[in-house]
């Protein structure tokens, strides 16, 4: 069978904020860009981001990028790479002003400048008073950004492949990545997209967990594709649980709610965060607030008939502020739990939210792997940006408002690097048929009509296993059992079959391909978590409660065969002094 082929300078897999920011930069530089997305671009999960994007614009309180950098390094529990963090924080203001010029309808201050709100983990003067750094369009910032970026891409005439599912990366005989095999979902037909450079921007893997703020499409496809191409995944044990998902349902209630003055209470109506973080209180870092909530519930101070959640109070802000600044979360709360936060508190509990780990890259978005001479050798022509990547600016714990910033800054940086790469690599290379065949097998494997277990069952069990074995608190035995259970599920998946073998818009087939990806990510996550014998950021071990900088100030690298390696943290910033590890108090 000959597979139809298209050729572009650059293939971007993913049309979220990361992919679209990169596409725009490339299209404006007259490169031919193909953007592949399994959903129509504005349905990508960036659309769900609520609270805002960080930049030290100093529109409300005094601020500068260096303070932002300090907060980010501290927030990362010192696992973040300080060169990337400096780069991101310095670029932040420019990137946000660009967004504004693209048309993003930011909320405004009376001065006419962009509205900024307080978010967790933000300080002035290296740990001093609360900063106000998060630029917001009400509580729909992601929607506003994603739509504006898509709109400017329409203007720039980017080629979109909407509702195409990327199956696997394709290489030549020497192992250069030269694009991807994709499937047009509407027809079920394969297509080869050949490119001189490829950028992976497929977002996170929040579907690993049963209760999650993430969309059903967040299945870590790009990370799994990269693993299969022989590249390791970095720091996968660090998965962020957001303190305030709607209890039992998972919909996010943005940290911006606490930034606007909301706070958490337990069943004694106590503002308990004052005990855990005397200064920052409800605006401490996410890992800290999530653990505090879990402890309150575990010690019997949870609310509701099952005492299984805490309450987020905002009624004291008044109807006007809530309607103007937080209309989206008010609507969500009314829709999903029939509670109007103007009058009553919202039930919340820590909920799976963000994949800190991912595809290892440097600050140009180049994917880097360890080779003999160095722990970070770039792979020519292959890039990753956004939540699927690990630059690493978030280290062990991401600060709210830093992910939108990450996807924009590094989407743009990757595009700029690609523009240079294309100048030196003008011609397409021949594809390896073997690599095409291997990718096709992933698709045809699901045409097998013999009987077998259904995909859905395995998916539900996987999410439960991850929730029970790799959640806010972890220990050796629980994690070990988790690894065993995931392995059993993984074996079962090889024997799973579809009953629907039709071609046209076969969503069952897409879900099967997604589950295979998710399975590899689940393994990467539990195996990396089991190995790391310390507590750092979001990775909290009951059996190793302290951070251990002597042994563990290093990044994990997980390979598809289950092997782990480690590489040093880049502690040297670009121009300023290193922030050395210190105890983290808020």
């Amino acid at each position: 069978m000959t597979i139809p082929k298209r050729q572009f300078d650059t293939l971007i897999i993913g049309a979220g904020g990361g992919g679209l920011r990169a596409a725009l930069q490339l299209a404006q530089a007259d490169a031919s860009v193909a953007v592949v997305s399994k959903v129509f671009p504005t349905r990508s999960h960036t659309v769900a981001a609520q609270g805002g994007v960080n930049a030290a614009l100093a529109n409300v309180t005094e601020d500068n990028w260096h303070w932002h950098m300090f907060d980010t390094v501290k927030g990362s529990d010192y696992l973040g790479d300080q060169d990337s963090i400096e780069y991101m924080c310095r670029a932040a203001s420019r990137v946000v002003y660009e967004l504004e010029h693209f048309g993003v309808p930011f909320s405004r201050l009376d001065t006419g400048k962009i509205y900024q709100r307080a978010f967790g983990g933000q300080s002035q003067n290296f740990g001093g008073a609360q900063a106000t750094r998060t630029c917001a369009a009400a509580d729909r910032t992601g929607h506003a950004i994603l739509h504006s970026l898509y709109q400017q891409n329409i203007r720039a005439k980017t080629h979109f492949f909407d509702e195409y599912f990327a199956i696997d990366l394709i290489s030549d005989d020497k192992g250069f990545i030269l694009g991807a095999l994709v499937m047009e979902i509407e027809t079920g037909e394969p297509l080869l997209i050949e490119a001189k450079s490829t950028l992976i921007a497929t977002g996170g893997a929040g579907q690993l967990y049963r209760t999650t703020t993430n969309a059903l499409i967040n299945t870590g496809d790009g990370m799994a594709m990269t693993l299969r191409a022989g590249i390791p995944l970095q720091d996968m044990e660090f998965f962020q649980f957001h303190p305030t998902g709607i209890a039992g349902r998972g919909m996010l209630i943005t940290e911006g709610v606490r930034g606007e003055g909301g706070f958490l209470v337990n069943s004694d109506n106590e503002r308990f965060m004052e005990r855990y973080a005397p200064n920052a209180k409800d605006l401490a870092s996410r890992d800290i607030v999530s653990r505090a909530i879990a402890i309150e519930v575990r010690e019997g101070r949870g609310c509701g008939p099952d005492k299984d959640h805490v309450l987020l109070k905002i009624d004291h802000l008044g109807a006007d502020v809530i309607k103007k600044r937080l209309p989206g979360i008010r609507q969500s709360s009314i829709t999903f739990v029939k509670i109007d936060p103007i009058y009553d508190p919202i039930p919340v509990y820590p909920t799976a939210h963000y994949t800190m780990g991912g595809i290892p890259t440097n600050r140009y978005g180049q994917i880097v792997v360890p080779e003999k001479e160095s722990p970070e050798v770039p792979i020519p022509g292959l890039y990753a940006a956004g939540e699927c990547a690990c630059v690493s600016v978030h280290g062990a714990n991401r600060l709210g408002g830093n992910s939108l910033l990450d996807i924009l800054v590094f989407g743009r940086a990757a595009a700029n690097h690609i523009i240079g790469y294309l100048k030196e690599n003008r011609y397409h290379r021949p594809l390896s048929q073997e690599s095409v065949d291997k990718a096709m097998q992933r698709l045809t494997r699901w045409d097998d009509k013999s009987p077998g277990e259904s995909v859905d069952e395995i998916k539900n069990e996987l999410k439960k296993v991850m929730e029970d074995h790799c959640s806010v608190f972890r220990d050796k035995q629980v994690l070990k059992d988790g690894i065993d259970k995931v392995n059993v599920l993984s074996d079962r998946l090889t024997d799973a079959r579809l009953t629907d073998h039709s071609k046209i818009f076969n969503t069952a087939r897409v879900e099967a391909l997604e589950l295979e990806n998710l399975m590899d990510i689940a393994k990467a996550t539990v195996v990396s978590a089991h190995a790391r014998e310390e507590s750092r950021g979001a990775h909290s071990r009951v059996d190793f409660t302290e951070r251990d900088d002597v042994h563990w100030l290093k990044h994990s690298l997980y390979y598809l065969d289950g092997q782990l390696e480690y590489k040093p943290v880049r502690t040297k910033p670009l121009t300023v002094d290193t922030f050395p590890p210190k105890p983290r108090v808020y």
Partner: protein
Amino acid sequence: MKLKIYRYNPSQDQKPKMQEFDLGETAPGMMLLEALLQCKNSDESLSFRRSCGEGVCGSDAMNINGRNGLACITSVADLKQPIVIRPLPGRPVIRDLIVDLSGFYQQYRTVKPYLVYNDPKPEVEILQSPEDRDELDGLYECILCACCSTACPSFWWNPDKFLGPAALLQAWRFIADTRDQATEERLASLDGPYRMFRCHTIMNCVEVCPKGLNPTSAIGKIRQKMLKQSL
């Protein structure tokens, strides 16, 4: 709980049929999308689009008991049973509840839905007063779900010529933005008997918009602005 769902797979079926599902007792507070996912669990060939599950991505627009809406924010408790679910009306069906929205997206592109700013860009933000920014509320929130356009009779009759409520709402979103510098071109491109003037203010669009937006009022404002300009 009982549902009747429109099924059609063009590669297998001569014509569409309605399939019944019975989910028995369901959890309180269940949303229709969760019910559909359960149906799919029992018959994996049932196809529909979905992603965010919270009414922000616009994927799962469908016709629910005769009215367009998003399954993920429609509570099943509020629906008469059996819940009858069909694809959005007036668009070619690709399969089951999935319709071809390419025409809808094309109309969106036609109104040049992007900010045009021709002056040299400042190093900082283009200033905008909170009052001017308020003009964009009720416009920028559109999630392109197509509930409105596929409920609009003028759109059914003239899908090639009439732009439909969603595209027109976006046209106004940029005209209303004090930062945009292409108002005249925008107004000129909407003139003529069809592109905008086919709207007969039937208000179906307003009634179904899951985000509570008001395309009819936006269309009215474009008309007013045109009138002012022509005076």
